[in-house]
């Protein structure tokens, strides 16, 4: 058999063209940028009237206070519970729904318009209605978070199913695979990168949903700290939950990114990301 010099990077040991090495690692640039922002904020923040704004060192002090008197921990726990329930429900319902809508034209014709409309719906306007239905406690918060996250997850899955190349379906047919097998073994794995994209997109929206719920239903958790400290003009304390939420969202996003690389590693290579 003819043995060709294969061009895959894994076997390239001739070293003639090394992958372009950045002079500075990515994490260093990110960290440096954050430090610069914090420093600038600290310098210019001190001049602002404490009612209108705050600065990193004051915020950090407030953070430590909240941490040591246990309020931050308790609030976080209160907020996270409906978040987890709402977000996970959005995945469990959104993904299969997206698969069905993408696969069957009848489902798409019937439900597609509802999903697209739901995505654009201003949830804030619906909260009073949701309170009437679900009360003021845990259920309504989970419902708000669910409604905020389910639509992007469903739509991305739907788009993913429709983006499966017809040629891959041909492969399944040419190997005499029945429709159910094609759906499970070809369409589903091919849609996985899109599903992951939808799930990541939904994180930010779920966090917004959580705060909306805490503002407009029974005030609790991190939203409560924000409202109460705002009412007391304690701007430094108000920033603490905001930053905690940002860190949480970024952290969850990074976790999902890692999970995505574990579950769908081929997408990065195809798209040429590194």
């Amino acid at each position, binding site marked *: *058999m*003819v*043995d*060709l010099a*294969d*061009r*895959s*990077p*894994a076997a390239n040991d001739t070293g003639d063209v090394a992958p372009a090495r950045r002079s500075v690692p990515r994490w260093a640039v990110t960290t440096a940028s954050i430090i610069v922002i914090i420093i600038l904020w600290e310098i210019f923040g001190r001049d602002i009237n404490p009612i209108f704004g705050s600065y990193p060192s004051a915020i950090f002090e407030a953070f430590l206070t909240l941490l040591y008197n246990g309020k931050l921990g308790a609030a976080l726990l209160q907020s996270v519970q409906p978040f987890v329930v709402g977000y996970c429900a959005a995945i469990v319902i959104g993904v299969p729904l997206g698969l069905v809508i993408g696969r069957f034209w009848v489902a798409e014709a019937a439900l597609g318009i509802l999903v697209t409309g739901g995505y654009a719906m201003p949830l804030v306007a619906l909260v009073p209605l949701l309170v009437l239905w679900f009360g003021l406690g845990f259920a309504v918060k989970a419902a708000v978070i669910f409604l905020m996250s389910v639509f992007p997850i469903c739509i991305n899955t739907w788009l993913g199913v429709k983006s499966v*190349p017809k*040629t*891959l379906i*041909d*492969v399944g*047919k*040419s*190997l*005499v*695979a029945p429709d159910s*097998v094609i759906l499970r*073994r*070809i369409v589903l*794995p*091919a849609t*996985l990168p899109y599903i992951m994209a939808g799930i990541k997109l939904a994180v930010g929206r779920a966090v917004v949903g959580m705060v909306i719920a805490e503002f407009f239903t029974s005030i609790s958790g991190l939203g409560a700290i924000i409202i109460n400290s705002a009412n007391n003009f304690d701007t430094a304390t108000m920033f603490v939950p905001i930053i905690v939420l940002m860190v949480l969202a970024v952290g969850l996003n990074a976790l999902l990114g890692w999970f995505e690389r574990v579950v*769908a*590693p*081929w997408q990065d*290579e*195809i798209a040429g990301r590194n």
Partner: protein
Amino acid sequence: MGEVSLIDVSKRFALRIDGNVQTVRALERLSFTVADGEVVALIGPSGCGKTTALRIAMGLETATGGAVTVDGVAIKGCGYDRGIVFQHAELLPWLNALRNVEFGLEMKGMRGAELHDTAMKYLTLVGLQDSVKRRPYQLSGGMQQRVGIARALAIDPKVLLMDEPFGALDAQTREALQTELLEIHARTKKTILFVTHDLDEAVLLADRVVVMQHGRLQEIVDVPLPRPRDDLAKIRGSEEFSQTRYHIWRALHAGAPTLH
């Protein structure tokens, strides 16, 4: 046995163009037979319907008229008696080479050690025994196409159908794979029907060349080159090669098609 026949195959598409529905006659009563163990090339200008004919033979599309038979039995959709190799390998990107070849065998119901060993056998046949754990994006174009060939052969079809299998590859890889295909054919004696737009390739690989024009059969040209075809370079320089090539070229550039 692996004889495949196209009998009066016609295919019409209804296309909506500018609000009007137009009927496109992709194939018009196409008939020819590929004998058992024969290699036949299907050649013609772009849009002549050769890929459509191949897809109908595979069962991926249905003819609007006529029939395709394998060993005298009319086909109904795809089957394990026919395997296809696509122009772009179309490997499942989330599976490594071995699992890609095993996929078809799994559909056939094979499991366990037999599944693994059969897949390995065909990957070895195409020379990829050392790259079985690689994912498609870690394989070069030529290697991916070899996996595609292994996948099609693994299900042990009677007929191997190939749709411009080397069209997407660079010239050198193409030549290497053409040599390999001849070796595979010599070893497995499979019936092969392949679509190409490359005249050289048609003459080098085929026993007969079916020339199509506008969805119809133009002419069938015999290739008088003996087998085994070991030295492709020498063959390219031979008189028979040039004459056959010219014959096909003339057929491709002839006027109205002769009706058979």
